[in-house]
């Protein structure tokens, strides 16, 4: 667990350093994700608990968004003038986008006959 956490932090740090070195607009942690993925693909040695540690953090991913969500409430005055219109735009836009994304994915998977095994886990 300790070693696994050290790996996660080191790769995030490497990601942050890389992003700044090439002044890329990507966030450091996303580059860290790519680095850990490559690490796994080329089968470099990893601490045994890496899988469990990653699953443990991801199991409560929701918790990690709570402080930022509370920050939203502090910004509510920004919404005073246009608040309800913004909410309407967001609700319609995400409904359309969710449907467009999922339907494109599912229809293509069906046409290519690749949805039978992988996609239907329940």
């Amino acid at each position: 667990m300790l070693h696994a956490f050290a790996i996660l932090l080191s790769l995030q740090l490497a990601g942050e350093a890389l992003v700044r070195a090439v002044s890329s607009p990507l966030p450091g942690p996303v580059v860290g994700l790519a680095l850990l993925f490559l690490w796994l693909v080329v089968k470099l040695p990893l601490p045994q608990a890496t899988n469990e540690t990653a699953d443990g953090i991801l199991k409560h991913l929701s918790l990690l968004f709570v402080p930022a969500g509370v920050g939203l409430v502090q910004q509510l005055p920004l919404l005073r003038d246009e608040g309800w219109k913004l909410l309407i735009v967001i609700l319609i836009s995400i409904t359309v986008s969710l449907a467009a994304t999922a339907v494109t994915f599912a229809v293509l998977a069906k046409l290519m006959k690749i949805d039978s095994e992988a996609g239907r886990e329940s």
Partner: protein
Amino acid sequence: MINFVDLWVYLSGNSLLWLTVTLLAYIAADAISAALGRHPLANPVLISVVFISAVLVLSKTAFPSYFAGAQFIHFLLGPATVALAVPLFRHLPEVKRMFVPMIAALIVGCVVSIASAVLLAKWLGLSKLAMLALAPKSATAAIAMGVAENIHSDPALTAVMVIMTGISGAILVTPLMNVLRLKNYAARGFAAGLVSHGIGTARAFQVNPLAGTFAGIALGLNGVLTAILVPLLLPWLLG
């Protein structure tokens, strides 16, 4: 005798109090969500945020003193993002097989998400600042705020749009997919992560590990594509 006012003054300025409150509020919210069979409306992020915000208002606590404690949890978003590589690697065979539908859905979803937000905002007569803040709303917060700076929008307002999009999408995705009768969990998860970034990904992991994996991929890919497409599409959408 303990003076409660002194005790409060001490505790409220202490990181430990708000860190503990955040953790306890989330544990309670997660228990409520589990008790209600993970009903989409019982979103643990939403419940915790509403509860903690009410406590902050009632106790007249300023956000910076709250965040002094909560930052330790916020910090973990970084290593958690890195950790997404583990389920991605575990489901690599499915991800490879689904490569073509995934890339097609990414391009369609990203364009629809940006264009629908900007065009609807224009149609409702929203200010230019609001239109610009809505454009990158589906990207993960760090990327969206970077895009906001590039297109001369307000990063704080953009962050609010991002969180609202995250929570609303996490609530809407399950009922919407059921109405559309989509049973492909890779597709459902991918849509959740593409539209509602990390909060959608957290919801997808609640429903199904495969959905969570595809949500994580969508979160990463759409973050990148949104950063590329927003500046390209904007002149055309605003024109």
